[in-house]
């Protein structure tokens, strides 16, 4: 009895096994160069403060978080897109920083390093200048993420849009009253491609139907 045939079978079997194993293991990770990256929105699940908010303000500057730097050439265009979304949903813009303040201020920042979780590192130093706020927050304050917020990986260049409630008491609680957060993952680099950024912003509002206000 010859051993050659079984050995040949073994070699063929092993080769096929390896090929099939590699094929099975190489299922592609979700990579699509044309997509807008990930858009996540976090919102408090019981938000009467959000339901009652009708007036807003959007500062024109996108803040570079984590102590990094950012090309600000597109800031105004991006802020205008966010502003346009609110207006189209029936919100009223209030730019006055000294008189009657808006219900909410919508601030924008971008990660200059990868962030994991729901926190926004170096937020307070970066946003200390924001108008509408009053006495500046300091690092002893707690960043009030929406209840049940999901931890996530935010890539470098993620546009973080955050709605802060200006009506809520904050000086005593030392808690930044966040109502809503949207993150458009990894769209802001040195030369942001505006259509991608806008598509992400539009998606963030599209998946937030609770923003709709009747005029």
């Amino acid at each position, binding site marked *: 009895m010859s051993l050659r045939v079984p050995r040949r079978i073994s070699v063929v079997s092993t080769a096929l096994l390896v090929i099939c194993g590699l094929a099975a293991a190489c299922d592609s990770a979700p990579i699509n160069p044309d997509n807008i990256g*990930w*858009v996540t929105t976090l919102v408090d699940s019981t938000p009467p403060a959000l339901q009652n908010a009708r007036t807003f303000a959007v500062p024109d500057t996108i803040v570079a978080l984590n102590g990094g730097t950012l090309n600000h050439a597109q800031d105004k265009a991006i802020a205008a897109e966010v502003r346009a979304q609110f207006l189209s949903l029936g919100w009223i813009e209030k730019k006055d920083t000294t008189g009657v303040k808006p219900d909410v201020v919508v601030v924008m920042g971008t990660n200059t390093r990868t962030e994991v979780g729901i926190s926004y590192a170096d937020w307070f130093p970066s946003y200390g200048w924001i108008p509408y706020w009053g006495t500046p927050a300091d690092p002893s304050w707690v960043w009030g993420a929406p209840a049940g917020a999901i931890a996530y990986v935010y890539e470098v260049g993620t546009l973080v849009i955050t709605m802060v409630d200006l009506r809520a008491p904050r000086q005593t609680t030392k808690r930044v009253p966040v109502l809503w957060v949207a993150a458009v993952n990894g769209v802001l680099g040195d030369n942001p491609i505006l259509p991608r950024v806008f598509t992400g912003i539009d998606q963030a509002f599209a998946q937030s139907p609770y923003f709709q206000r009747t005029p």
Partner: protein
Amino acid sequence: MTNRRWFPLAELLVALVVVPLTALHARAQASLSEPSNFMSLTTFEVSAPIGDTKKYMTGGLGPGLGWEGRWTVNAHSSAGVSLNVAGFSRHTESTIDFPSGAATGDQLRQLMPAQLLATGYVYPYQRNGVRWYAGGGVGGGHVDQDFSLGTQQISRGAWHLVVAPEIGAEVRGGPDRLFVGVFSLRYNMPTASGNYLGGGSRKFQYLTLRIGIGEE
């Protein structure tokens, strides 16, 4: 301590190594001169999702691999063990709503069931070198569930009791009829178990077409 003190130990070590090897060699030689009652099969598999598993397949079939050993019990039956791994994946780009928000973008859902079964088959019919059989396996399996949300991956897994009825055919050919090809259809029926993403226990059933080649 002198080297002389190590001699009995060295002899024992040599004996422990050489005797089993010699026995194995003798057994291998003997097995070459006698009809074998053992069949080793490598199986290449494609699986169609059923029930909950359909959510993990965009369409089509999931690939799989396996190894099976079958020992002949008598002319009409065999018993053995079967180790199999299957894979299902579904890639979508859509919005998921959570109680506290929503997420839009690439999502990859993957299931990887692996199972180890004790198998038994009966061969009621044989003609022209083709032995038809029916039977199946009973054993345990583990299902890995992965959900990739952008760069975030969430994984769950659980053990299941598995029952897997099977029908198929063995085809022999080649010199000394050493070639064995197996074609079979196996219905993998894990019991409901675990606490998977999406809520609660799941069965994750699937139907597998197995094509095996091996030697006897």
